[in-house]
């Protein structure tokens, strides 16, 4: 066998605003006798209870996981107000999934039990014992829970060498509530851990387009619990940041956050800390962990498109053309592209590389919670056997 048949991975999306119609459209495109698992990302414009009911009605007992998004990536490229889904053929993918609800209580013991049970569920059914060679783990988390770092670090310890990646659920920049979907309902303050063992070749990746500048800002007052930075360089954070960007404080918006990111340097790497909003007290809320005393480096943005194309082309060179690329794309990347007027160009690229996914409030890879990246998995057409 040199390539998987066409239904090893099926993708579908619906732009229908009616929940029943959207679910019906997905079911129509995805359902087949060997369908084993459906992963979806949906807009928060849907009435989530009605959507859950519609999905239950159309997919029955079939395992479904998903989350809300800050925008979807469908077969059209960047999209909004839609639901997009990937159907996995059980002859090629063995999928186990767990819902984690009390995120702040998730400890190493839980992580170990969760990992063990997933491994035994995926074991010996398809591609042999799950290992880093045939298995990856996808995590979807409530993007406003502020628990990603602790949960991810804990989970990563238990997963060992198995690669994990994922994204934080979004809500179209409303910043009120984000949800993950499991077993017929949407939940907040929760995470889904999905283990996928497959016969197909795959490669997990994470890429960004940021370049460090000279300017450094020191966090001099912070509320780590809530990811709030009160002061940068002993000034109100928004004031110091606005001066860096070169705009008045009241002009700070998502586009500014997208185009003038901050990052921490750890060893030789720069890890973006995306700004979520300016608070009334001139403090800044972030999408990821901050701490008093950390040094933030001002970053400039290179071309998202060049970086994306280079990265995915290199992977496809190794794996063959992608069946599907599951992408968790930072919401600020879309915002930056919007500001640059490049959304349509980006959509062309995303289509060419078969990317299906969503705009996140944060990406996750190997226990790290990061921003401003496209993180995901390329599932190649070459068969590993």
């Amino acid at each position, binding site marked *: 066998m040199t390539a998987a048949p066409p239904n090893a991975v099926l993708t579908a999306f619906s732009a229908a605003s009616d929940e029943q119609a959207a679910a019906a459209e997905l079911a129509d495109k995805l359902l087949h006798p060997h369908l084993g698992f459906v992963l979806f990302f949906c807009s928060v414009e849907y009435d989530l209870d009605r959507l859950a009911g519609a999905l239950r009605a159309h997919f029955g007992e079939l395992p479904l996981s998903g989350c809300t998004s800050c925008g979807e990536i469908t077969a059209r490229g960047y999209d909004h107000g839609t639901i997009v889904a990937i159907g996995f053929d059980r002859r090629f993918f063995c999928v186990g999934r767990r819902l984690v609800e009390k995120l702040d209580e998730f400890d190493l013991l839980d992580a170990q039990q969760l990992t063990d049970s997933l491994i035994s569920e995926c074991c010996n059914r398809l591609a042999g014992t799950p290992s880093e060679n045939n298995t990856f783990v996808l995590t979807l988390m409530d993007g406003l829970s502020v628990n990603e770092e602790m949960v991810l670090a804990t989970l990563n310890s238990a997963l060992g060498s198995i690669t994990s990646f994922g994204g934080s659920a979004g809500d179209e920049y409303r910043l009120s509530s984000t949800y993950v979907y499991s077993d017929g309902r949407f939940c907040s303050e929760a995470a889904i851990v999905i283990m996928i063992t497959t016969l197909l070749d795959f490669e997990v990746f994470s890429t960004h387009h940021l370049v460090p500048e000279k300017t450094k800002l020191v966090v001099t007052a912070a509320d780590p619990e809530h990811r709030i930075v009160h002061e940068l360089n002993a000034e109100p954070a928004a004031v110091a940041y606005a001066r860096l960007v070169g705009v008045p404080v009241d002009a700070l918006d998502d586009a500014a956050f997208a185009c003038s990111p901050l990052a921490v340097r750890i060893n030789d790497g720069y890890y973006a800390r995306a700004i979520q909003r300016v608070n009334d007290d001139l403090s800044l809320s972030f999408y990821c962990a901050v701490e008093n005393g950390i040094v933030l480096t001002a970053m400039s943005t290179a071309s998202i498109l060049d970086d994306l194309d280079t990265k995915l082309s290199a992977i496809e060179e190794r794996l063959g053309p992608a069946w599907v690329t599951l992408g968790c794309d930072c919401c600020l990347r879309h915002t930056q592209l919007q500001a640059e007027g490049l959304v349509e160009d980006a959509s062309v690229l995303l289509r060419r590389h078969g990317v299906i996914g969503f705009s996140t409030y944060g990406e996750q890879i*190997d226990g790290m919670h990061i921003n401003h990246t496209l993180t995901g998995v390329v599932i190649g057409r070459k068969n590993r056997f």
Partner: protein
Amino acid sequence: MDEKTVSDAAEPPDERSPWDLHEARLMAENARLKRICDALIERVEASNMAPTAPYAAFQHSVVLAEQVRERTQALREVNKQLLAEIEERRRVELRLRDATEKAEQANLSKTRFVAAVSHDLMQPLNAARLFTSALQENPDHNTAFQLSHISTALRDLESLITTLSDASKLDAGVVTAEVGVFPLRRLLDVLAEEFRQMAQQKGLRFRYVPTSLLVRSDPQLLSRIMRNLLSNAVRYTERGTILLGCRRINGQVEVMVVDTGIGIRQDQIGEIFEEFKRGKQAVRYHERGLGLGLAIVEKISQILAHPLRVQSQLGEGSRFSLTLPVAPPSEYNARVMQAGQLASQSLLGLRVWVVDNDEAICIGMRTLLEQWGCDVVVAESLSALRAQVDTTADEADVLLMDYHLDPGTDDGITVAEFINAGRRTPLPVILVTADRSAKLKQRCAQSGYMQVYKPVKPLKLKMALQQFTGVMQIE
């Protein structure tokens, strides 16, 4: 918004002197730097603690991921190297196993071979011994009959040893073809006559279809092939006919030996050319044979580049054929030295010095050479020779030198060189040896010595000595 407005917003308006204002600004700046400093200190200190806070957990994950990435890379490298090494070792092991298998196979066949050889050599030896003791006990009774049996037994022995020697020479790759042009008939006629008698003794018909064609081959090696094929044919045929025939095909001649014998099973046709292997049917037939015959045939046919073909039907018979290149008559340069002519020539007066450490051979040589009219001095060693003649000054025509002298003493070539070194004109040397190695051949060629192989055939020796009378006459 610039720094000034920020400071102004942070500080209450002041109406004091510019100096005071300046000082206040410095104080504010100082306070800000102190705050930054404190934050950094706090961070530095916290970074040494266990990662319990979210940012620390993140930082921990980053460091971990980087370490994992680096180690994975390092491991991947090591793994690649190991895999390469394993692959190399596997290949070496495979080769070793292959070699071991071959060695074991060879060892096994050598063991079988030694057993076969011992058995085969013992038979004629026993016969010879029996007849010899009969002769000793009763010297006058039926001497001619017993002597002829001893002679037969010794001939058998010689032929076995020659076969062995041939096989080992072929194995060592020292045999090369000395190709010439000659009438194929001259070679085949002799063989036909010889094997006709053998066949008739067994009650078989023998047909011979001669040819007048000239061929390009090595007559000695070709003869050995034909002998092997013919003796096999006679050996493995119980009734019917043996055919030795030639036919011309496309400028070549095919010489074939066809029998109506036991034949060879199709699946064994490839194997019969292996050393010490005889066809399943053949094994029953024949007690005295080393299973080397066809192996020798095949090797020689390769050396001669004469394609060898076998066709056989089990129980019906076999057909072995050899294809030789035909030569045009213009290439045939007849220079036939008749053995009879040679034998009649006299070696009268040829002065021969013989050195051989075997007393019996010394006596035999003296008898033979004196029969031919030679003037003979025989010695068992160099010192024995020097006791009889002055090797530096006395006249002689040829030195007949045994190669293997007593163990621990110099070999024949060294002795000959010693003798010649002391002479004004060096003596021609004929080296008598059983050593057929290329190395010795080369040494002889370098010194200009002739070689005569043991067991010494009187006619060959005579031919060799004849040369020196020739030289003598020319001078």
